[in-house]
């Protein structure tokens, strides 16, 4: 028996919007500690890891560990039927073939039940290791989103370089090149507007903007985004989910290909 009651239902809606474009279907794993997901995108290049800790739910009951395979597109369709202020409750029976989403309006005058078919999905849980990163950049999430969007109009690869000067995002394409430099800035009115750069070692890595842009779908979840870079490790792009967890995207850097010689 599983019953999770999330008062701030909009969080779950936003979580789904931030992963459904990247991942088709995935297993949600429920344990006594929390509600989590780990999945690869369809080309097996990027990884998403989601955690919503049990403390963040108003009511959290999970009798035994349960893995529920869901088609994220379908799940998103159902969650879109919930109002932004609605309380969302996820219910499932052990070994059942469906999951139920219940939406309660804040005034309790409307209660909606949506039952969705579950899927059997083969997937291996990958233990993602902790690591020390050479550089960690924390910045406003909408700024990061804007940068990725702007650069992808010019090129398809972004080079992220962190130096003591700041962090540079650059790209090159048929029409020209673009460079965007952000400097550390902690003297701001609102802490979420700060740009914090922790640099142990300078790094410079290339990433496919296609993936970066799908990561930024999580922007509504959090005002800030944390980008952790090491020259030998996949980049981690992390958005906090309120006080209850996180969504992390992992992407391996691109190796600089030799430039195509145009005919």
């Amino acid at each position: 028996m599983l019953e999770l009651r999330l008062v701030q239902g909009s969080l779950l809606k936003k979580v789904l919007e931030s992963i459904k474009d990247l991942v088709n279907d995935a297993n949600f794993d429920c344990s006594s500690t929390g509600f989590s997901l780990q999945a690869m995108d369809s080309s097996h290049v990027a990884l998403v890891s989601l955690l919503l800790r049990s403390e963040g739910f108003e009511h959290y009951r999970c009798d035994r560990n349960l893995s529920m395979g869901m088609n994220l597109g379908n799940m998103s369709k159902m969650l879109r039927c919930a109002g932004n202020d609605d309380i969302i409750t996820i219910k499932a029976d052990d070994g059942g073939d469906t999951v139920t989403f219940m939406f309660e309006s804040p005034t309790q005058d409307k209660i909606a039940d949506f039952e969705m078919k579950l899927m059997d999905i083969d997937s291996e849980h990958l233990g993602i290791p902790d690591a020390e990163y050479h550089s960690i950049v924390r910045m406003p999430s909408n700024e990061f989103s804007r940068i990725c969007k702007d650069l992808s109009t010019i090129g398809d690869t972004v080079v992220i370089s962190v130096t003591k000067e700041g962090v540079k995002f650059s790209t090159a394409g048929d029409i020209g090149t673009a460079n965007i430099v952000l400097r550390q800035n902690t003297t701001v009115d609102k802490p979420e507007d700060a740009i914090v750069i922790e640099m142990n070692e300078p790094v410079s890595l290339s990433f496919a903007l296609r993936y970066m842009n799908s990561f930024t779908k999580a922007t509504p979840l959090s005002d800030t985004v944390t980008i952790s870079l090491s020259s030998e490790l996949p980049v981690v792009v992390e958005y906090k989910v309120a006080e209850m967890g996180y969504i992390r995207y992992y992407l391996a850097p691109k190796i600089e290909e030799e430039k195509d010689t145009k005919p």
Partner: protein
Amino acid sequence: MKLVTYNVNGLRQRVSQFDLLLKLLDSFDADIICFQETKLRRQELTADLAIADGYESFFSCTRTCEKGRTGYSGVATFCRVKSASSSCEIALPVAAEEGLTGLVNSNSRNGKNETSTVAEGLEEYEKEELLRIDQEGRCVITDHGHFVVFNVYGPRAVADDTERIEFKHKFYDILERRWECLLRRGRRVVVVGDLNIAPFAMDRCEAGPDFEKNEFRKWFRSLLVERGGSFSDVFRSKHPERKDAFTCWSSSTGAEQFNYGSRIDHILVAGSCLHQNEDKQGHSFLACHVNECDILTEYKRFKNENMTTRWKGGLGTKLKGSDHVPVFTSFDDLPDIPEHNTPPLASRYLPMIYGFQQTLVSVFMKRRANEEAKAIEVSCSSSMQSNATSSCGDISTGLLRNCALTGISPEKSCSFERESTCSVTEVDTVASRGSTVVNLSDRIYVSSVRAENTSRDGNRKKARKIQSSQLSLKSFFTTNSKVNIGGDTSSSYVSSSQSSQDESISEPNVSCKEDNEPTISTQEQDQGGSSAKQKNNSALMEWQRIQNLMQSSIPLCKGHKEACVSRVVKKPGPTFGRRFYVCSRAEGPSSNPEANCGYFKWASSKFRDK
């Protein structure tokens, strides 16, 4: 006399590929150019897509919104002419008609066509029925005196879509009736376009045994002279044995790489030759006037020299161009025809182009003329304003001349660029005043529209040149705050990048992980003593394992042992939304081991059974 047919798969895209419509048209060096699938809505017909110097154009756009089909299909015929009026050129049509039924009339402003009549031979059809067939902008008919050109975009119908098959039937039935009528009257008919029919098995890669049994292919063949019909497939007549001559390749399967296509863009001719005295034995339009015909394969998107850019399941391949290639034919020995003017269907008379969509230069001309008017102090009586709308064509001829005398002042041309959206009403009054200038001071106006065109183009070029050196007018631009908001924010990013960067650092480090290859064993590792280093090393190892796992969980195809690409079922049905893996290579003949091996595997996810 050269004639080209090309399914452009979006005229806007092809124009931007060639920078200018004129360059696209000139690349064919042809007298009659027939485009299909312009994918333009009527309101999108702007001068940059419809008007090119030295060409007359005739458009048909889809008029229905059924099934969300806006900006869908659409055909256009461009005719290269020296003059649009009083010309004897064959390329300039004597008459032009939008649609195949005679019921569609694009230029209702001419007034006289209020009650359009059903074309000859179609009387037994219901008018509504005909209109329904003719709503998708699939045909433009131009009468060139010696022959009538049907620029046709044939409907596509998949085997199980009975409604569309019915539609396709009616479409071709109507066309055939019209052709018969014209042929009975002794006219010659030239049918060009993407007919979406490959008539013979040799016109399709690896055609199955039942290929030629298809009803539309049968119909197509029944049209041919060899089968008792009236038409000749020009390409096949000139190249009866040529195999693998295709004009269209599926872009979703990368079929161009292995020339896995079909020949569905055709040029058909019917009718007699122009020779009169001799007996008709061995004479026909085809035999006496058709010189050559071929497929313009240089317009193919997939060039063999860029074989390195493998299709890879469509990932990262951006092929420039249409999924079709043009086909051309040339006619010779055709004398000039009696003097005639461009038909009213011509784009130059479209209200979108002539009425409210004005070119920058023409707007400026009118202002200029207006000032001239003031300068020479011609008093404008209000009664003369009524002339303005009726005598539009005359006005600009005169205006252009006025302008050519005085030259263009750069400030003015710029100011109009900024104001052009809001100044329509103003322009109207300016124009009306301008007309009086013409009428009073310019009694002898030149009627050649062709001359007008060249001078307009000349002026436009001039205006552009001046604008490009317009940096000193910066202050003028900044007054317009609305335009600059977007520009300012983006430029602040770029300017900040001026700060110096450590060269050695901005060089990309060689990273050990690669997207495509699972073999990462060549990785070089630092031997570090600190615990942080050790932790990192173990993280590194762990990530290598994860990445190997991620890669190895993609199935390898049977034929080439390469990683597959994953796709999702889009077709409604019990498997809708399910993911599967297929060979990533481009589709090709099954004899070619390099082509797609047909590997298929469901991704291991399905709905739980009840």
